[in-house]
């Protein structure tokens, strides 16, 4: 019993530590990649080729003055909101398998846990928007929470197709079912589901082209306009955490998890990381290229396009399962 707790604690610490490092370097990668796409260099001063930039950013944000505006609705809620976002994003890490033997808790309802946690993260957004007691953050919080709730439905429906094909909600079972299936990855038979999931994931994490709630030119950072210093850093971390968790989920459910054409001895997580990095690059690429949707078009896309597509996907999967 104690050994089990100790092992879980160790695994979770390792996982959280490595993910935090990934999050920090995803911010660096984003700035570098977007810079090169825009014909300029990204950060290249701090450390060789700018590699120490995230550390410099974290140090700067930690040493800033902690400002709480005097008109906040309730300082307790104001301080609590970034933690809710961060914790909700990070808790999903506990159930995602990196390779066959490494998962912090092997729960039979892992997919449901992840969906529930992403719903919880919208709490942080609403609380931040309301507690800041400023017009821009209020508008931003409302928009963000409505957007997150709408796109969650599309995401969940897209995942239903995967559950139907694999027959279980346990993520390890899903990956094993993928490896045994003739296509090796579920992205091919579930192509519509994969597309819907990726679009919904971009909308869940409030990234371009769905980042109207926090768009600079329209609402000056939306729901976290009043946050500064380390609290702002926590929101920022929560956004990238969400991004990485969504990418991990996509890799596990649609791209075959840790499966690869050839095994590399000693590095069992290699293929998982390759697929993860590819999806993160895709997120960053989309941000550099596309303009932003207007809010009503965004909601229209979620409700009128993605949900019907996901339902169609379920119907087709059901038919295939029955007939084949």
């Amino acid at each position: 019993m104690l050994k089990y707790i100790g092992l879980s604690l160790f695994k979770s610490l390792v996982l959280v530590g490595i993910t935090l490092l990934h999050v920090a370097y995803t911010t660096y990668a984003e700035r570098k990649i977007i810079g090169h796409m825009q014909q300029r260099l990204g950060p290249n001063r701090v450390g060789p080729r700018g590699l120490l930039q995230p550390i410099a950013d974290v140090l700067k944000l930690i040493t800033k003055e902690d400002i709480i505006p005097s008109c906040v609705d309730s300082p307790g809620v104001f301080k609590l909101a970034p933690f809710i976002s961060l914790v909700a994003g990070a808790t999903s890490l506990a159930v995602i398998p990196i390779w066959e033997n490494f998962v912090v808790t092997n729960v039979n309802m892992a997919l449901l846990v992840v969906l529930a946690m992403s719903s919880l993260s919208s709490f942080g957004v609403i609380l931040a928007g309301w507690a800041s007691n400023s017009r821009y953050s209020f508008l931003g919080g409302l928009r963000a929470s409505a957007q997150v709730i709408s796109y969650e439905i599309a995401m969940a429906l897209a995942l239903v197709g995967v559950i139907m094909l694999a027959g279980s909600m346990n993520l390890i079972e899903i990956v094993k079912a993928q490896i045994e299936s003739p296509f090796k990855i579920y992205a091919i038979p579930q192509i519509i589901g994969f597309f819907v999931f990726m679009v919904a994931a971009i909308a869940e994490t409030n990234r371009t082209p769905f980042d109207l709630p926090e768009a600079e030119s329209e609402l000056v950072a939306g729901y976290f306009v009043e946050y500064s210093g380390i609290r702002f850093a926590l929101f920022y971390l929560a956004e990238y955490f969400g991004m990485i968790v969504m990418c991990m989920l996509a890799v596990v459910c649609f791209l075959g998890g840790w499966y690869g054409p050839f095994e590399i001895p000693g590095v069992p997580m290699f293929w998982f990381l390759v697929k993860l990095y590819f999806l993160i690059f895709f997120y960053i690429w989309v941000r550099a290229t596309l303009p932003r949707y207007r809010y009503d078009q965004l909601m229209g896309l979620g409700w009128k396009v993605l949900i019907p597509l996901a339902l169609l996907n379920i119907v087709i999967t059901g038919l295939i399962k029955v007939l084949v």
Partner: protein
Amino acid sequence: MLALEKLQEKFPEEIIETGESAGQTYVVVKREKIFDILKFLHESGELLFDHLADLTAVDWHKKKTPRFEVVYNLYSIRYKQFLRIKAQVPEEDPIITSVTPIWKVANWFEREVYDMFGIVFDGHPDLRRLLMPEDWEGFPLRKDYPLFLSPEKEWQGLVELKEKARRLAPFDWYQRVPGEVKEEEMKEPEEEKVAEGEGHGASA
């Protein structure tokens, strides 16, 4: 010029003088029927002055007797004709009819003329100051308004701002305001605090 002839035919007693300056015709009129004159120019079939290029005022302080002149620069896009109408406005009674019903662009032009010269436009939907702050006193572009304001006549908003900066200077990184600020001056005055403390969503 066709416009000039038509004007002389229709409003002969309103025109005070006509002339030409740098190749552009101008007509000086009295201010009473300016609305009818401009409406005629805007709607008449052969003239069609649909583009009000500019509406401004000139202050002839001590040079000419009706002190102000409101100048309308009109252009007809279709017939490529340019005309300038100048309406004389005396100093004691600086009121003239607004032409906002004819051209919507006159709205802000007239607000600026009111702001800078003090000429009131009768019938304007929303006459208030445009470029200067709402509580400014005086009309800047008049010739008797100085270029630099003396320190006694400084705008109240600037005085308050300087006072606030002086009071908050001790909290700055380095001493910007020479001399010391005493203890009791560092506290904010009482009424200001009450006004700022309340207000759920009232601050924008």
